[in-house]
């Protein structure tokens, strides 16, 4: 198959997979507590359906979607709802947010689930409803509600290509790779469900060429399945080829226009972990309550690929990995490139958590002093979006976010390639995030100012109208008075004239 090449990227970044890529998926024990932040997807937070003291079973819906862009949440094990309130959530700023806490009873009783014998009997609309009800979100890290991506009702353009994203391009992460090695048949079944839903002709599963074993296991699963619409493709290992837009470019040569979504060019792209969850939800009838997480880095004694109940605290997973080493320096959720540091290990795993990296000093912390930019342009050569990071940095640093926006700051995917290649060790992405939030704040301020201005103008208009009305009234009054006065004068003059006339006629007579 012909492949295309996006600009830049880092071909040499495919490192640190060896720590965990050979480790089979193990199941983590059910922890004593499960914590579910109500917002663990893009969109509106879910609304609790339970109250403190309620008994729940595994697979029971404990919070429901609110509005279209939202997702329900299901209990990961049986137990009692022990708290509904603020809890630390995985967020770069260390926020707390409303969460449901379940104290498990150790029995792990499941809600009855009904497997589906033949998904082809179901319509696309019914399948979208099942996927929405199962709480599926993008498991590659973005956590966008999957049902919306798959819902073709309101879309005008037919989907031609379904892309299954198995290009796990960040260093250290191996959860998708293990999934494809061990459960390829289920994943391919999930692909069939998606093909049926989207009514599209071809599905391409992309795997980086540094994982030949994974490729052959997927190929074997496709051969066993026998569906000619599905194929697996090896793509060059270049970070960030697993980023949606870069992967679409690599496979189709098409670009998603700025501000648009893949469906606008007839493409839907889904992470392979999510495809597995689709198979579980549609065929097995199981909602999303667990996922595979890679726990790795020099900071843990035995790295693992674990099937984890969503809601498990990170420290329970570290225990499975035999604890921290004395090199442990920083806890990162996600990979070293796009992940973020966590405040502590009390924070729960959420649906989007693909990796917990316990980084040592030399893995994550750079103590190199940032030097001035020398305009060498290495960042622009590395940028997979073809931005000019050096010029964006110039404007961002000068607090001129609008100028940066004109240079397409908002198209930055924050992949971190520019940071890696910068010879002056400038934390460019940090500056870009700052400028982006400044833009967002500006936009909000402008919105508020617009509202205030509209209100002010309406008030001014109303006052002016009132004033005009009052003026009109008093003018009328004055006019009336004047008219009356004039009438009197005329009458007086007329009577005077009459008197005079009479007087003259009397004289004459």
């Amino acid at each position, binding site marked *: 198959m012909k492949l295309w090449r996006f600009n830049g990227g880092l071909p040499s970044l495919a490192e640190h997979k060896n720590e965990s890529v050979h480790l089979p998926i193990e199941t983590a024990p059910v922890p004593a507590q499960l914590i579910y932040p109500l917002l663990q997807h893009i969109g509106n937070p879910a609304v609790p359906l339970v109250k403190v003291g309620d008994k729940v079973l595994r697979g029971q819906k404990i919070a429901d979607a609110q509005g279209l862009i939202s997702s329900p949440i299901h209990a990961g094990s049986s137990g009692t709802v022990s708290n509904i309130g603020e809890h630390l959530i995985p967020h770069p700023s260390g926020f707390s947010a409303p969460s449901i806490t379940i104290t498990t009873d150790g029995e792990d009783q499941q809600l009855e689930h009904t497997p589906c014998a033949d998904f082809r009997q179901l319509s696309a609309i019914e399948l979208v409803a099942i996927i929405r009800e199962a709480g599926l979100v993008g498991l590659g890290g973005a956590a966008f509600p999957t049902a919306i991506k798959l819902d073709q009702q309101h879309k005008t353009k037919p989907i031609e290509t379904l892309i299954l994203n198995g290009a796990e391009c960040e260093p250290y992460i191996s959860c998708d790779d293990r999934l494809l090695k061990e459960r390829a048949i289920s994943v391919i079944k999930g692909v069939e469900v998606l093909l049926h839903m989207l009514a599209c002709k071809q599905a391409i599963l992309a795997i980086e060429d540094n994982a030949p074993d994974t490729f052959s296991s997927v190929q074997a699963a496709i051969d066993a399945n026998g569906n000619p619409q599905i194929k697996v493709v090896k793509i060059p290992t270049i970070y960030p080829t697993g980023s949606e837009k870069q992967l679409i470019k690599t496979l189709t040569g098409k670009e998603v*226009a700025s501000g648009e979504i893949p469906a606008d060019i007839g493409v839907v792209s889904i992470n392979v972990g999510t495809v597995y969850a689709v198979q579980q939800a549609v065929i097995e009838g199981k909602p999303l309550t667990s996922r595979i997480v890679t726990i790795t880095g020099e900071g843990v004694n035995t790295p693992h690929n674990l099937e984890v109940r969503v809601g498990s605290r990170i420290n329970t997973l570290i225990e499975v990995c035999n604890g921290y080493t004395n090199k442990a320096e920083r806890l990162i959720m996600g990979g070293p490139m796009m992940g973020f540091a966590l405040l502590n290990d009390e924070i729960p795993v959420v649906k989007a958590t693909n990796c917990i990296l316990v980084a040592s000093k030399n893995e994550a912390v750079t103590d190199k002093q940032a*030097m001035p930019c*020398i305009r*060498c*342009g290495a960042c622009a050569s590395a940028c*997979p979006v073809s931005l000019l990071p050096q010029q964006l940095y110039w404007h961002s640093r000068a607090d001129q976010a609008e100028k940066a926006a004109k240079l*397409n700051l908002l198209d930055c995917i924050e992949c971190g390639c520019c940071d890696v290649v910068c010879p*002056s060790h400038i934390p460019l992405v940090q500056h870009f995030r700052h400028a982006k939030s400044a833009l967002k704040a500006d936009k909000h301020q402008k919105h508020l100012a617009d509202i205030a201005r509209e209100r002010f103008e309406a008030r001014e208009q109303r006052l002016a109208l009132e004033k005009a009305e009052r003026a009109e009234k008093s003018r009328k009054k004055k006019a009336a008075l004047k008219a009356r006065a004039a009438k009197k004068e005329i009458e007086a003059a007329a009577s005077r004239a009459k008197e005079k006339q009479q007087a003259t006629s009397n004289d004459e007579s």
Partner: protein
Amino acid sequence: MLWVLIALLPGCITMIWQFGYGVLFNIIICLSTAVVAEAWMLKLRGRNIKPFISDLSAVVTALLLALALPTIAPWWLPFVGTLIAIVIAKHLYGGLGYNPFNPAMVAFAVLMVSFPKNMTVWVLPSSLLANDIGLAETAQLVFSSLSSSPIIDSITAATPLDEMKTRLNLSQTTDEIRHAAIFSNIAGEGWQWVSLAYLAGGCLLIGKKVISWHIPVSLLAGLFIASSIAYLVEPSISPSPLFHLLSGGAMLGAFFIATDPVTAATTLKGRIIYGLLIGLMSYIIRTWGGYPEGIAFAVLLINMTVPMIDQYTRPRVYGHK
């Protein structure tokens, strides 16, 4: 920056070998002045001295200036030149990364305009000298008596570029001029070897990915194309393209000076335009300008166009038309 210094070594050695110890004195004076001036300015500006000194950018600037200066110069010429480069052209503009003009070339241009007599005294290549000038003798010339020395006229001469220009103005043809001893058939005795040494160093930099090929190749191409056209049209009054490429500062300029990232265009397309323009401008100055060598002025002039080049050569961003 260390690789830039290493890549300049063959050029330095060939310069000293071909033109004597005067070059060595230039290098020593420039380097020591640069380090002291850099540290002094950093201190005045309240900057951290160690990381900025150890990035070697001041040393590279100083070495480039030293190699561009005449092969024998009174001590104060490299000294003043280096101060202009480091203090005025670099730090007064905001230091590393903020200077719009190449500091070494600013210094060269200021010296050229201010001290034209000293800037045109070039020692003959050693192969054309009756007796070699020793280290002690060179030191004496540099530090005390260069202008008053009786031997100065016997050991110095115009550069091949200068000679070519002067004689062309006297209505001689290139064929006649080429037979003078200093030309040694191609680009000038000594000069061609120095140029080849810079070329080798430049190739090393490209091979090591310290610089990209865009600027040097397009600069040399600009010079080559312009001189080829003239040579094809009027060979009797136009020096050959090879003469243009291998004499004067073309190779030094192409691989080491125009490639200074701070003052060059940053986009790939922009770099090609930038290089072409410098090559073309060098040819124009060499042919019609008041000075025999045009690289320094061309670099400065094209430095000015960099913001505009960058503005109009932005790459197409993913997902944009």
